[in-house]
């Protein structure tokens, strides 16, 4: 499976052995706990449910309390499930941390991007817009959106202004530059979605 959750700490520069400087993101990933193990027989598929970040029991809803009690797991803030080929090797209460990754591994990182609010069509969809000067009266507007009597309506899925950002995005094939098991830190090459403190899912690509 090789997956865990973490938080974005920030970005910095990382010097490779060749002396080359590359942009890198530091991710803090405290060990996640396996809460529930799903099996083919009972659930129809093999999977592992991970819990990340301790929380207080009284903050949970009754159904969630029951869920954690059932598997004798400590209360966690975030629950994420991954499918695995074989769930035999996992058991509730098992901890998974950054130790499963090594420098040079490739990972996919999933998280929500920064919210941008209500944005126009230029920022949201990359429309070119019109000239700012030279008598132009067309600047950043979306332009014509429909046709004529036929079809007589705006087609569904038309790119228009609206809420932008805060969407789930997966950045694929990031190289792990360093693993610090002492501090539970993961350094990956390149950028990951969201602001500092963003909750991220980190998954190995080798599955």
């Amino acid at each position: 499976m090789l997956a865990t959750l973490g938080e974005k700490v920030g970005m910095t520069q990382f010097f490779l052995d060749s002396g080359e400087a590359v942009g890198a993101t530091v991710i803090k990933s405290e060990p996640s706990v396996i809460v529930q193990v799903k099996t083919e027989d009972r659930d129809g598929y093999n999977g592992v449910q991970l819990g990340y970040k301790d929380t207080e029991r009284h903050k949970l809803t009754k159904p969630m309390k029951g869920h954690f009690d059932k598997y004798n797991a400590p209360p966690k803030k975030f629950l994420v499930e991954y499918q695995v080929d074989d769930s035999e090797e996992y058991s509730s209460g098992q901890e998974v941390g950054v130790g499963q990754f090594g420098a040079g591994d490739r990972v996919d990182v999933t998280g929500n991007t920064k919210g941008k609010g209500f944005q126009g069509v230029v920022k949201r969809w990359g429309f070119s817009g019109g000239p700012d000067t030279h008598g132009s009266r067309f600047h950043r507007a979306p332009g014509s959106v429909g046709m004529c009597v036929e079809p007589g309506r705006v087609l569904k899925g038309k790119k228009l202004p609206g809420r932008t950002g805060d969407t789930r995005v997966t950045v694929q094939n990031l190289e792990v530059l360093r693993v610090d098991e002492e501090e539970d830190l993961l350094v990956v090459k390149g950028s990951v979605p969201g602001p500092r403190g963003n909750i991220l899912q980190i998954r190995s690509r080798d599955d």
Partner: protein
Amino acid sequence: MDDFMSKVESDFVRDDIPEMKPGDKIQVHEHVQEGSKKRVQVFEGVLLKRSGSGASAMITVRKVSSGIGVEKTLPLNSPKIEKIELVKQGTARQAKPYYIRRDRRY
């Protein structure tokens, strides 16, 4: 959170860099690769500015080479820099003494 950043960066931040201020005259000894040959190139000039902090700090060094001003911007903590030597302390009072570009004395 900042602690974790500095922990990662601490491995790269070099402690063999002399204390230097913009306006100082310095020598940068830099590893260069020419084909298959490696050698150290010395670039001597005035420290024009320092920018950034932590592992990603940069310096800009300026020298006048046969009448033409040459500025080189490089990562301060790069392993490609063998060493930096302080040649002479300068008198610039600004953090970014850009007047040096127009000053005939430099």
